[in-house]
Each structure stands twice: as C-alpha cells, then as structure tokens.
C-alpha cells in the first residue's frame, strides 16, 4: 500500500479548507480507506475541533519533528472510524518549527500504512503553505465564488505551477444556486473560466456544515446533507471514480454546462 498525499489549500482564509479536509477524510474512511489527516496550520490549529478530537491530543506534529514522541504516538484515532487518524498542529509554536523536508519525511513514513494522507494547509502563501505542499502528490484548491477568494486562489495556482506541483483540482465551496440564478454570484463556469484549472467538485452553501462543525461531526455522516453529498462525491472522484456532478437546483442548462466544462457527462 502506498498512500496518495493530498494537500488542501486556498490562499485566502475562511473559504472552508479545514471543513473540506475533515469531510473528505471522513468520506474516504466511510469508503473503507485508511486515512491520516495532518493539520498544517501551526499555531492556529483547528482540524482537531472540526473533527471532534480536541480532547484526545497528547502529542502534536512538532513533538514528532523534535523527537519528543514517535509518529504513531501523535496519531489520534478517530472516534468512529478506527482507520482514520489526525496528526494535530502544535498550538503554542510558530510555523518555523516545521520545514518542508520535515513534512516530506513524515508523509513518506505514513505512506506505507495508509491509502490517503490529507494535509490541511494554512491560509497564505508563506512558510506554512510551502510546508503543506512540499509532500503533495496532488493539490486541491478550495475557493468561494467571491472576488477575493478567486483572486487568491489564482495566486496559489500560479505558485503551484511555478513549483511544478502538477495540475491542481478546484473545489468550489459555498455556492448559492439561487444567487447564481439571479446573476448575483459568480457561476461555476465563470470561476472555472477565470482560474483555468480542472474542477473536482462544487459544494453548495449549506447550514448543516456549521451544525456539523458545532458537534465535531463532519456533514458527510449526514445522509440528508447536500454539502455532505457533494463531499462524498469528491472523495469518490479522488479514488478515481467517475461520479456525475450533482444537480444542485434542478437547472438542467447550468449544470449540464458545468459537466461539459469539467469534461464529465
């Protein structure tokens, strides 16, 4: 077994990176995959609370790097999925406590015993981001249909190109189909045209996401959640399955156009 290392990044903060990581990891675990999540946001850790594991932290990634514990000791087993783990960020250290080569080494150690390693990148394009992409086999860029988020996503895509990190895949998060219909929100076609990268999924704006993070239970566990369904679909696409895009508002024209753009029918 050799894991695929996937980094989730965005440029701008607050677009839903951590939510995406928690949901994709959980969806992959639901599909029976062995998953390790790494919180790459040193000093501002959050993946632990979103996953509901904050009370179980003993060691963190900086403890591993500085030799205070073994890698296995810093891996927190999920409450519901015994094959899913979290390696938390250090809360009281700064981003310079980790280097890109540390991340590469840790990911390589994890590859043998897992199917997916998912790294939650911090916002920005500085050290923490560089650490997060260092080991990535594949990068997912999360954005919202808003000018600031799209602009920052474009910067990140430019850096990934310059670093020859392969073709990043886009997650368009928090799309409001009604606003798109009223021409008051950038459509998926607009965002794809602007960014010029491949789409891996569109996640509709959905209250259940906040309810899920309130409880520390990612929405992919909720069979009725639309956002949960979108994340479950993305997880399947990451496993190489050809899953059609959801019809978010029964608007044939728009959504079939997106599917054409994304090269899936």
């Amino acid at each position, binding site marked *: 077994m050799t894991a695929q290392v996937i980094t989730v990044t965005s440029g701008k903060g607050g677009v839903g990176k951590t939510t995406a990581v928690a949901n994709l990891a959980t969806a992959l675990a639901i599909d029976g995959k062995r998953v390790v999540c790494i919180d790459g946001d040193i000093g501002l850790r959050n993946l632990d609370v979103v996953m509901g594991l904050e009370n179980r932290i003993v060691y963190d990634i900086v403890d591993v790097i500085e030799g205070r514990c073994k890698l296995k000791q810093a891996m927190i087993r999920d409450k519901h999925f015994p094959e899913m783990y979290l390696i938390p960020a250090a809360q009281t250290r700064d981003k310079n406590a980790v280097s890109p080569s540390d991340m590469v080494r840790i990911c390589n150690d994890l590859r043998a015993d897992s199917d997916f390693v998912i790294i939650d990148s911090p916002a920005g394009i500085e050290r923490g981001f560089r650490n997060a992409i260092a080991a990535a086999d594949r990068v997912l860029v999360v954005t919202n249909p808003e000018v600031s988020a799209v*602009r920052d996503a474009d910067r990140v895509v430019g850096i990934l*190109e310059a670093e020859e990190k392969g073709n990043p895949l886009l997650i368009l998060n928090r799309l409001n189909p009604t606003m798109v219909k009223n021409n008051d929100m950038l459509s998926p076609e607009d965002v794809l045209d*602007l960014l010029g990268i491949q789409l891996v999924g569109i996640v509709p704006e959905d209250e259940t996401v906040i309810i899920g993070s309130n409880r520390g239970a990612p929405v992919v566990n909720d069979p009725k959640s639309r956002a949960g369904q979108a994340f479950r679909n993305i997880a399947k696409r990451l496993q190489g399955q050809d899953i059609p895009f959801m019809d978010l508002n029964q608007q044939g024209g728009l959504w079939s156009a997106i599917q054409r753009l994304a090269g899936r029918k």
Partner: protein
Amino acid sequence: MMNFFKRKSSATSAKERLQLVLVHDRTDLTPAQLESLKDDLLKAISQYIDIDPDAVQIGLERDGRSQRLVADIPLRSPSHHRAG
C-alpha cells in the same frame, strides 16, 4: 438605450473586474507599467516604420492559464507617407 440605464449584474461586474486583476497579478505588471511598455514599444517601432500612434492597441490577453501580449499596430501606408 435601455441598457444605458440598466445596471450591470453584480456577477458580471465581479467577472469583468477579476479578469483584469488576474491578468495583472499573473504578469506582475501594473496598468501604469503596461502603459510605459506601450510607449517604449511605439518609440522603438517608430524608428523603423511610420505608424499611427493613436490607432495602436496593445493589451494583455488571457488564454486558459497563459497570458499573451497582443499588439495591433496599423502602419501608415508608404504612398501616404510620400505624399506628405
């Protein structure tokens, strides 16, 4: 005439503004730098051929993730030149 009064949709504004911003972000050229590039280019070309500076169009265009500098520089016809 109706279009003149009708306000552009906010999504259209967002897209148009982003198109411009992204081209400048990607090339690391400010609109002012582009203007000065255009002036230098025209000066250089004018040393060899007669052009109409007012008809020149130079701009950055987007094609997927790549940018290109596109210049449309109409030449003044030689006969016109001789006549003058």
